[in-house]
């Protein structure tokens, strides 16, 4: 008896998968032979983008390495919800050491494998945005600079979720967190440059850098596979909406990830050896309001009187991304397609 894989059922543009793809190309939701690096039974919130992202990223990495994979995990939601003692959701060898050292732990694993001549086993490190852009940044930059054979995956939910939604260096301007409350004349997070880690990673000249979201799981898988086909330091930055921290509906996780891209706030691209080599164009550009309005963390920007001035500033951030990466297809490009 044959078993067809179950593919994502398409309910519209804001659900996982891509209805423009034919059935055979759509992302698999389950299959008999699926490795399930992260099994069900973990304790993530309903609609957690991080759980979804980690499952698809690591399953893709397992496929790409024939299951010869080990993972280092930073402290954070992913670590906590996957390994409540004495249970574990991981089907792969997995080590959690500290909040800020996952890149270095992974370097140690890769060094051990190299010395032992076990080139078949590959190393993945994973962390939230806090463990990546803030406390783990020194170790990460060192790992990049040495070009250690590690794929580092950042699951960016734009705040310290595990400790109760505090601001991180990846928290966007105006967003409410527990340490940037929506009070006072400048409600929410301050406007600044933020820390654009994908571009910082590119500046290290490492072999591969890519961004992805959980809205395009197929794209995420493809990027993981690409990353695993390369040796050296590789960086994947995945936007993973967090219903709890973003005060959004659990059912909106995919929608939000997609709107983040379609608004220009989260550009999707790939870079190799310091140069951007591919950019995913925005299919149907939307104003940032469409993205912001679905999230309670931006509630203070809307209503009466609201803060249209701040919304305009956020639109500027999106516009700058669109210009920098050429996210909107020009007329000529559209014709070629």
């Amino acid at each position, binding site marked *: 008896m044959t078993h067809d894989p179950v593919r994502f059922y398409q309910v519209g543009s804001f659900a996982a998968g891509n209805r423009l793809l034919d059935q055979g190309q759509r992302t698999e939701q389950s299959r008999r032979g699926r490795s399930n690096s992260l099994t069900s039974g973990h304790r993530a919130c309903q609609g957690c983008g991080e759980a979804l992202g980690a499952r698809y990223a690591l399953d893709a990495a397992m496929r790409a390495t024939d299951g010869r994979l080990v993972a280092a*995990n930073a402290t954070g939601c992913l670590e906590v919800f996957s390994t409540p003692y004495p249970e574990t959701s991981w089907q792969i060898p997995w080590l959690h050491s500290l909040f800020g050292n996952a890149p270095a*732990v992974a370097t140690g694993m890769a060094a051990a494998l190299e010395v032992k001549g076990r080139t078949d086993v590959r190393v993945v490190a994973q962390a939230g945005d806090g463990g990546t852009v803030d406390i783990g940044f020194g170790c990460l930059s060192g790992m990049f600079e040495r070009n250690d054979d590690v794929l580092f995956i950042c699951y960016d939910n734009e705040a310290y979720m595990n400790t109760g939604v505090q601001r991180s260096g990846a928290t966007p301007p105006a967003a409410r967190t527990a340490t940037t409350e929506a009070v006072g004349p400048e409600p929410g997070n301050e406007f600044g440059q933020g820390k654009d880690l994908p571009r910082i990673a590119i500046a290290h000249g490492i072999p591969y850098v890519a961004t992805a979201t959980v809205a395009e799981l197929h794209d995420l898988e493809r990027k993981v596979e690409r990353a695993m086909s390369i040796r050296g330091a590789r960086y994947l930055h995945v936007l993973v909406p967090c219903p709890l921290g973003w005060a959004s509906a659990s059912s909106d996780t995919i929608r939000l990830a997609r709107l983040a891209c379609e608004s220009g706030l989260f550009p999707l691209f790939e870079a190799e050896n310091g140069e951007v080599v591919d950019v995913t164009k925005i299919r149907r550009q939307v104003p940032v309001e469409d993205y912001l309005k679905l999230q309670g963390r931006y509630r203070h920007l809307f209503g009466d009187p609201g803060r249209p001035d701040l919304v305009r500033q956020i639109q500027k951030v999106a516009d700058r991304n669109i210009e920098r990466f050429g996210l909107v297809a020009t007329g000529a490009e559209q014709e070629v397609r």
Partner: protein
Amino acid sequence: MLRQIEGSRAVAEAVGLCRPEVVCAYPISPQTHIIEAVGVLVKSGRLHPCKFVNVESEFAAMSVSIGASAMGARAYTATASQGLLFMTEAVYNAAGLGLPIVMTVANRAIGAPINIWNDHSDAMSVRDAGWVQLFAETNQDAVDLHIQAFRLAEELSLPVMVCMDGFVLTHAFERVELPDQEAVDAFLPPFEPRQVLDPDNPVSIGAMVGPEAFTEVRYLAHARQLQALARIPELAEEFEAGFGRAAGGLVTTYRTEGAETVVVALGSVLGTLKDAADSMWDAGVPVGVVGVTTFRPFPAAAVARAVSAARRVVVVEKAFSIGAHGILAGDVTLALSGLDIRVDAVVAGLGGRPISEASCRGLLEEAAAGSLPALSFLDLDTHLVARELERMVAQRRSGPVAENLLRDIGSVSGSGLAVARPGSQKGAR
């Protein structure tokens, strides 16, 4: 082979003989010569297979060691002082995970004020982390302790720190017997990890543990340390049988028989104390010396046994718990509870202040006369201290303490703080 060799180089050779597979370190005086020399061993191919990883911080150095050890590789690192503090979170983590990493600590003071010279504040700051802590008295000791450290660490699956006095040992050229490879290989079998990351048999390591089992996990760490307490003397015996040289063990004793006063200490100061004890015996005052080789786990029974015949114990230590008491002295006091033995602490050699034989003799005479206070500071310049205390009373903005003191003793020119840069004549930090 007998070699006239710098302590750091000797330790590097010993580490090389132990065939580490991953060495990862970050430079800090006075540890630098050790890792430089190990680096040469690796880069020249003499130590193969081994990977030497240059990292961006001590925190990374210990973290790389954690990853490598969990992957089943024999991992080694070395640090000192600020570096040990910088990696402290990972130091605790390595112990909590039960990873048999071996680390040399080239003992050095902790700032501020920044000071590159020797004392034991660094090692003492992590004494509760769950690492075994061994203290070398000589460079020969340092060599031999490293070989035993790898064996102990891997047998019990717990990390071991070998402490050697910065500069006093690390930079001293001495005759050292370096064992040959066959002897070390016979003593130290290949690393067989108790837990390992393996795709063929996946395990999760480092899971979160709540109140339901945390006490038990910690108790087991304690139990492992108690196992080490039993295993260390056995390994020392086996080492002596194989290498023809006594090294390691829990404590060493020197002329304790018939001694009414016994001095207890860690590390290289034991040599000076033995000289001072000799001269006391010559003067008709019997003084013994006990060296604590294994500081963690603390060998309370062995210490009690070693000093049980004495009437008073003086603990000379290169660190103390500020606002409280001596640290080693506290452990010794506990070890002797129930015995009618007085224990006094003498803090000495902080930040590299020389501990002279004359000063030691002075304190031993005071001890023998029963006039030593419970806590004292060897060669403390009380005038200097009094002057600063007065200044603090006299004016609110009395200024930075360290710079004031240096001005008082005339080691910097008196005008303005801009020139008051202690140690600026030294390149190494």
